[in-house]
């Protein structure tokens, strides 16, 4: 039962992975909503800024982004802790993908809903907050569920900027013991267990957003 001895170190790594993932999901969601809403509702300048952000972070490799923020940015005098860098870059990366989910869902709200809001004299911000966003949220949830799990898996890349996450710990133990099969099997199980929990959380949020009776047809699909 040699692999039992790996557990304490792997658990500590898993804790870091969970922390980074959850932080990145939370901050990424803020970035996603800000950029997605700016794309749809912002003026020309604001939506252009949001577009640039989205395309820059979607169009480049996460690993290179991490290296750039961790190794290149300090050269001009800006540096953060490794964990802060990891969370920031991962947030911005998944936020860019998330902004497309927000944009798509907002644009899928029918024009009739906008017209009904206008006929009742809702202002633009009121229409967004009370009419379109709550409906769009329902559309976003399945895609956000995917993105949350993707964030967990992408978080393994932060091990390459010296953060002792689950993947980093696994590498270290393997280098020590050369027990690739045991270490990596355990690591896979660890990621899978965390993604199950994440999936469950996202399902609960989705169910809450759907509020049962409001979207009966969508609930069947």
């Amino acid at each position, binding site marked *: 039962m040699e692999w039992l001895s790996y557990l304490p170190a792997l658990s500590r790594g898993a804790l870091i992975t969970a922390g980074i993932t959850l932080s990145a999901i939370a901050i990424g969601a803020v970035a996603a909503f800000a950029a997605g809403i700016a794309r749809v509702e912002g003026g020309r300048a604001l939506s252009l800024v949001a577009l640039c952000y989205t395309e820059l972070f979607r169009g480049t490799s996460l690993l290179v982004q991490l290296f750039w923020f961790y190794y290149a940015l300090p050269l001009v005098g800006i540096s953060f802790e490794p964990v802060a860098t990891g969370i920031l870059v991962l947030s911005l990366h998944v936020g860019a993908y998330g902004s497309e989910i927000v944009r798509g869902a907002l644009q899928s709200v029918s024009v009739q809903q906008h017209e*009904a809001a206008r006929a009742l004299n*809702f202002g633009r911000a009121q229409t967004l907050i009370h009419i379109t966003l709550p409906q769009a949220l329902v559309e976003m949830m399945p895609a956000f569920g995917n993105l949350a799990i993707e964030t967990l898996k992408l978080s393994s890349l932060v091990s390459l900027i010296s953060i002792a996450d689950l993947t980093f710990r696994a590498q270290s133990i393997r280098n020590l013991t050369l027990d690739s099969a045991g270490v990596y099997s355990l690591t896979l199980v660890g990621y899978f267990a965390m993604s199950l929990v994440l999936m469950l959380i996202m399902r609960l949020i989705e169910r809450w957003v759907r509020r049962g009776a409001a*979207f009966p047809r969508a609930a069947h699909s």
Partner: protein
Amino acid sequence: MTETSQAPIIEFAGVTKRFGALTVLDDFNFSVARGEKVTLIGPSGSGKSTVLRILMTLEPFQEGRLTLAGMPYHEPNAGGPFKASDSHLRQIRSHVGMVFQSFNLFPHMTVLRNVVEAPLRVLGLPRGEAECRAVDLLAMVGLADKKDHYPAQLSGGQQQRVAIARALAMRPRVLLFDEPTSALDPQLVGEVLSVIRGLASEHDLTMLLVTHEMRFAREVSDRVCFFDKGRICEQGEPERIFSAPEQPRTREFLASVLG
């Protein structure tokens, strides 16, 4: 209000509306007296619904002048000949309500919230007062017992009645009905028409109704306007339009819809 009761509440003067190369309203002149119930009939594409959509500020127009209770739809100094600021349009909208063909209720809100939301957020009424009024309006359309249901749990006729209550909750002076029964199963049309019939007896409410229910139009309206190719081809009291239309186009149309 400075207007006299004789002044029309709605006045289109030479309004032209184009969608690209298509002219939907052509030098359109039309006025409605306060409290008048006017039905717009005519073949599809003749511009009836466009008149309502322009009045609700859902569509801009290209030429002419439109006023509501003396207020022009376009501000002279809003940066362009046919533009108006958001606050100006919101001021106009505060007098107008609309009932849509496809109901357009908010699916994520209960029936009560559908009716309460705009008075609460837009008019800033206290919640207690807004809910009290909403319950009264729902009782008026016969749906007080459905207030905690969601739109998806209601029939089309019930949804349309909620939509009428929702529009009335904003206390509009002008209420527009854009084919309110066209999307309904035949057996549900009656319940919606009877609600509209009830409103027709409200002295102060101005109503514009686009419909294909000719018998109903004849019964509730003060005036019927027959639209053809972006203009009013013939108008008058319903009795006369339906029993003795003068224009050949009106006769043709009525013959085709009345069978």
